[in-house]
């Protein structure tokens, strides 16, 4: 098995034994959406109109919550240094850790979206559009959050800095993600916003992954 698959397998095993750390994002999402529903007065029509942006925001915020889980523990306990001595490139480490972050922390958020959408009375076409948009944007969300994680993994604090660093990168994804989900019932998957969203994800792979790798290298040698 390749080192990338080995690291992902190990991370999934560790997450399953971590006492539920992987589910904090889900809990946050549930609270955030429940509080939004209360704050907006609980009118079903208002909630339905706002459900797509609210679910998008809850997923982005929940993903930012997990920033410190991506690289920090491996950095602190010496695992990163050993990866380097095992001839793994920073790019391999960054790819593996970003993938396991996407699988462990982000995918559960997207998979539970149908449940939340029921509370907001979202139609089935909008729900399909929302899930598709989230899945297409998944690489961009995971990679940009990982860039901040890699930059800050050698620092004890820096959560606030992470949000400032990541938010501007995620704004285009948020704008086109919401628009794609909303236009799905009219134009389907061929909607221009879906193509732009896919483009944003590809750009994140081309730019974000090498940036994470460079940040990891710099922090390792620091």
């Amino acid at each position: 098995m390749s080192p990338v698959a080995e690291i992902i397998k190990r991370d999934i095993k560790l997450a399953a034994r971590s006492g539920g750390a992987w589910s904090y994002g889900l809990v946050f999402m549930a609270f955030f959406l429940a509080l939004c529903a209360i704050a907006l007065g609980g009118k079903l029509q208002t909630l339905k109109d706002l459900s797509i942006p609210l679910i998008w925001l809850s997923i982005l915020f929940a993903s930012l919550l997990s920033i410190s889980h991506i690289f920090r523990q491996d950095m602190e306990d010496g695992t990163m240094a050993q990866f380097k001595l095992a001839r793994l490139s920073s790019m391999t480490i960054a790819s593996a850790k970003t993938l396991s972050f996407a699988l462990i922390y982000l995918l559960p958020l997207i998979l539970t979206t149908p449940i939340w959408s029921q509370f907001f009375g979202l139609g089935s076409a909008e729900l399909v559009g929302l899930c598709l948009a989230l899945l297409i944007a998944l690489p961009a969300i995971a990679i940009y959050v990982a860039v901040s994680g890699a930059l800050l993994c050698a620092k004890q604090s820096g959560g606030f800095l992470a949000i400032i660093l990541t938010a501007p990168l995620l704004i285009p994804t948020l704008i086109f993600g919401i628009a794609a989900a909303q236009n799905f019932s009219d134009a389907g998957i061929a909607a221009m916003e879906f193509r732009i969203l896919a483009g944003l994800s590809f750009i994140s792979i081309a730019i974000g992954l090498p940036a994470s790798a460079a940040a990891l290298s710099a922090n390792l040698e620091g």
Partner: protein
Amino acid sequence: MDAQTSYPMLTTPFKGVSLQASGLSAVRGDKTLFENVSLRIDTPELIWVIGPNGIGKTTLLRICAGLLRPDTGHLQWQINGAAVSAADCISFQPPQGFAKRGLTLAEDFAFWSRINGLKQISDAALDATNLSAHKHTFTQNLSTGQKQRLGLSRLLADQKPIWILDEPMAGLDTSGRAQTAHIIQSHIARGGIALIASHNPASIDNTPARRLTLGTPQ
């Protein structure tokens, strides 16, 4: 302990191993940790790096392992007279080892064997460090000595000729120290090199050893 000599894999000799460092210095913030440290190890030998806390022993070790860039100076590692990269020749063990919380000893050992590209998971290394009975213990429940031995078992399995160990004897009792000393002795005996930081260097029988003292004029 005798298990170690009964596995040929753990006794195949290393040849032509050397570590050469010249003019190394390291600066942290506005403090110079050490300046112009030179070191040449080209025969099987054990070097103790000694000096008070905070003098830069760990930094020197990490530089020699290729994990940190020195502020000045040059490093070269060789096998059979040919220059190689750090990853080709170096095993590095930090003070507390690097066992991952949440994995069992066997899982942690197997993970690193696969990451290091070893063809098979070698039980010989676990036998040689008397850890076979603890395979299913979670690493966070291992004692200090067992964690240190898990680190050593990975060094044995990894088969790299240069060992760089940071305080491998800290927190060990007499028998633990003897066991660690025996493993290090066997490594030197097969032609390897060990660079070890310690506050309390042990005398290891039949093993050529030198001391590098940081914090005093070289």
